[in-house]
């Protein structure tokens, strides 16, 4: 494989959860949490997954890892299709993809010392002997900005930022090439958040890691991502290089999201696009384009015709009828 081939390739990934039906509820219903998403991720690249609660970004991340089993679609990691692998077959490939969760409080075993938490993945994969592991744990502690004497401490003795450093050290222990980070800085104070973001960036520069970085904070996503995928109700509605996405968003939802994000500049005047209403339920998503119920640009076709993710050019992708060349509605944008 050439070096620039996609390290992670996700195609038409779906995760539908079944809601139990019952005597009174009638037939079973499905939550279309992730409903056909596709993307590539190169080595050393960060793809930001952004969207509001319930858009499926976290489910997408967990499904890529197969922490949640996909309903359909394929996941290729380093050109190996891992979608149908058995648990034991998957084990070897898991080493290549690790995860960092949002809540460092609940993702660290409170009864284990910090050192053994970081060593555990190495034990699982039979990497190094006891003293070798101890050395590597010390090196990892130093790399993520923790002191070696903190190895014998327990998670509750660490601050939020330190716990997230611990989670990162644990993820790095088995030298993965891909880290999937699910809202890793959302629970942190801004000054500490900056420390952890800088750590992610410098680790990537140093180790050539690929990241799928799930976040709802547009500033954070913009800072850390090379490309950004915007999700809405289980779909990717727009995918573009970060700079282009933020300078010239195409999808009406992306535009609204950017317009809604508060900016720390009291003199900024801007076009407010305040969306009305809430995100509809993924149990019964709207017909046609899922965004049409809130979209200020919607026209008749949007109610019946589900837009596909198109490539209008420059490697940008957008799922919106406004950009469908067959429809002369583009000028309306």
């Amino acid at each position, binding site marked *: 494989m050439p070096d620039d081939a996609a390290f992670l390739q996700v195609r038409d990934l779906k995760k539908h959860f079944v809601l139990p039906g019952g005597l009174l509820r009638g037939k079973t219903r499905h939550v279309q949490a992730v409903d056909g998403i596709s993307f590539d991720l190169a080595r050393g690249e960060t793809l930001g997954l952004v969207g509001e609660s319930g858009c499926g970004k976290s489910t997408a991340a967990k499904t890529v890892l197969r922490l949640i089993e996909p309903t359909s679609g394929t996941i290729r990691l380093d050109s190996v299709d891992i979608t149908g692998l058995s648990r034991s077959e998957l084990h070897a490939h898991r080493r290549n993809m690790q995860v960092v969760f949002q809540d460092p409080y609940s993702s660290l075993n409170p009864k284990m010392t910090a050192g053994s938490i970081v060593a555990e993945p190495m034990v699982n994969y039979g990497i190094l002997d006891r003293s070798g592991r101890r050395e590597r744990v010390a090196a990892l502690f130093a790399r993520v900005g923790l002191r070696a004497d903190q190895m014998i401490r327990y998670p509750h003795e660490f601050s939020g930022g330190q716990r997230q450093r611990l989670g990162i050290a644990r993820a790095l222990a088995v030298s993965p090439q891909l880290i999937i980070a699910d809202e890793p800085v959302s629970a942190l104070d*801004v000054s500490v958040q900056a420390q952890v973001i*800088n750590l992610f960036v410098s680790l990537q520069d140093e180790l050539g890691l690929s990241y799928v970085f799930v976040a709802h904070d547009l500033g954070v996503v913009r800072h850390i991502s090379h490309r950004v995928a915007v999700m809405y109700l289980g779909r990717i509605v727009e995918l573009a290089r970060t*700079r282009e996405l933020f300078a010239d968003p195409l999808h009406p939802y992306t535009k609204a999201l950017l317009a809604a994000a*508060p*900016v*720390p500049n009291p*003199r*900024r005047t801007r076009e407010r696009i305040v969306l009305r209403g809430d995100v509809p339920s993924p149990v019964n998503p709207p017909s046609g384009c899922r965004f049409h119920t809130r979209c200020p640009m919607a026209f008749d076709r949007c109610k019946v015709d589900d837009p596909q993710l198109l490539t209008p050019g420059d490697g940008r992708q957008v799922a919106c009828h406004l950009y469908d060349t067959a429809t002369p509605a583009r000028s309306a944008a």
Partner: protein
Amino acid sequence: MKADVHAPASAVALSCGEPVIRVEDLKTYFFTRDGVVRAVDGVSYHVMAGETLGVVGESGCGKSMTALSILGLVPKPAGRIVGGRVLLDGRDLVHASEAEMQALRGNEISMIFQEPMTSLNPVLTIGQQIAEALMLHQKLPKRAAMARAREMLELVRIPDSARRVHEYPHQFSGGMRQRAMIAMALACNPRVLLADEPTTALDVTIQAQILELMLELQEKTGTAIIFITHDLGVIAETARRVVVMYAGRKVEEASVAALFETPLHPYTVGLLRSVPSLEPDSDDGRRRRLTEIPGMVPSLLDIPPGCRFAPRCPFATEECVAAEPPLTEHRPGQWAACWHTDRVEATFDA
């Protein structure tokens, strides 16, 4: 009833631009097994009618505890207001009786919290909860109170209010619950609204709706808002003046424009620089390192000597450890507690 609590002062407040609420040198301490936690340690601020004061700072800075102190809701028995005053139209609330405070809360002073689900009663309908305050404080009969509750839901733009007024909190989405909380908080036309991270748990598109709604209602009612948040973006869009808190102290106060353009305290500068920007003109590639504030907020049990920010401050000198800098007015309306504001200013301009 409203009038007997502060009748003499209110007329004065409305006529000559006196602050509606004034916090003076407030000290709220917690007496724990491990020692005294000085959660709020000499904080002063005020808000005028129709004004929004932003209070910003990170976890543990005392911003929420100041608000709870105003309402007389400091967790007992560990917590206690040990000094200072809270003046509502000139009347001190620190020494008010519990009965007097109950007459004020939800009436003269209301509060909205971050997570509406935990502050709504799950077994009462939304309408009953809004009506409760009206029946209690304004002595409305039940039928009139429920009708007014429905009007309040309409005011905060909850669609189909006639049906929604009879629904329970779990039937509302997160954004709608926060709207219902606002309806409840504003039902009695309070003089002061304390909003503690009211949009932090909401998605950005919903947050934009709620902020717009709050400011629009404020224009109609003239309510003074104390808006507590960690989000500088939200501050920039809502507040007129801003107080920055750190480790139980106010470290800077300024107009919102001055705070963002010419900050004087190193902590304010650190906060502003550590936020990843969405500004179009900062488009020089994503690899710019974010400015970190090294270390973390000190334990309030073990407050560093001198300036509390000194251990994390790039400007700190021996002077900072030796003596705590007083809060002084460096420019008209801009106050900072730092020995080195000249150097901070020079650096920020550069």
